[in-house]
């Protein structure tokens, strides 16, 4: 279970969350995303849910917290590709009224990856 956080040009951060989001996992997901927000000061944070396998209300706290953080910095949050049952949880919280939910994030990302998170590079290095 890890979150793949990538920095793209024009101060865009794309955080691909993988696996289950619950009270147990939310803390480490939050830490990984916030580290990149602090390091690269993005104006747009895209939280990608396409590889999320489960989410309870801990996911609402996770998005609300990042929304608060980004708004304080004058930035924006977009939720990308949540499955139907995840959307249902978001709708219940009303967070879908604060952030855009998109089914295809590509229009928001300029290609050319600036940096890939170090953890992933290390993991790839180990694999060989």
């Amino acid at each position, binding site marked *: 279970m890890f979150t793949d956080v990538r920095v793209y040009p024009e101060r865009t951060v794309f955080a691909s969350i993988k696996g289950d989001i619950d009270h147990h996992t939310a803390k480490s997901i939050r830490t990984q995303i916030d580290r990149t927000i602090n390091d690269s000061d993005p104006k747009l944070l895209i939280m990608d849910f396409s590889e999320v396998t489960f989410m309870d209300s801990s996911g609402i706290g996770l998005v609300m*917290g990042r929304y608060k953080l980004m708004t304080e910095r004058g930035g924006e949050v977009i939720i990308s590709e949540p499955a139907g049952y995840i959307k249902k949880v978001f709708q219940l919280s009303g967070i879908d009224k604060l952030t855009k939910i998109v089914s295809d994030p590509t229009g928001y990302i300029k290609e050319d990856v600036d940096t890939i998170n170090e953890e992933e590079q290390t993991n790839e290095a180990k694999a060989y």
Partner: protein
Amino acid sequence: MKRKPINKMKMIFPTYSENERFSRSAVSSFISQLDPLLDEISDIKTAVSEGVTNAIVHAYPDSIGEVTIEVKIYTDRTVYIKIKDKGCGIEDVKKAMEPLFTSSPDEERAGLGFAVMQSFMDKVTVRSRPAKGTAVTLIKTLREKEQ
């Protein structure tokens, strides 16, 4: 419910947060014998996760306790789930169930656990006594299978 269940199970586990995933998977696995629809499985898993997380976060704030889950299934496709702890209990159940009420805002808890349970299940009952513990009962009747 006085009817006889067609099957039942009971599990007891310590309040380690690692057990959140285990407990919802175990319940989902048990009810799979009713051949539920995918969205019914998601609803039940989410509701169980909320109930178990409440016990882990709130019932035993400074220690590790035990959570008991009982699941019963009935011929009319009703699923009955009871999540019980012997923790600190809830002073004001009505207030605790209000949407957005949270006793731990710093932990980014949204305060929507009960709202999720009520929205995803047919019936949610909470019984609690301070210093004795809390029991949350979740009931959902699954849709009839198409022949």
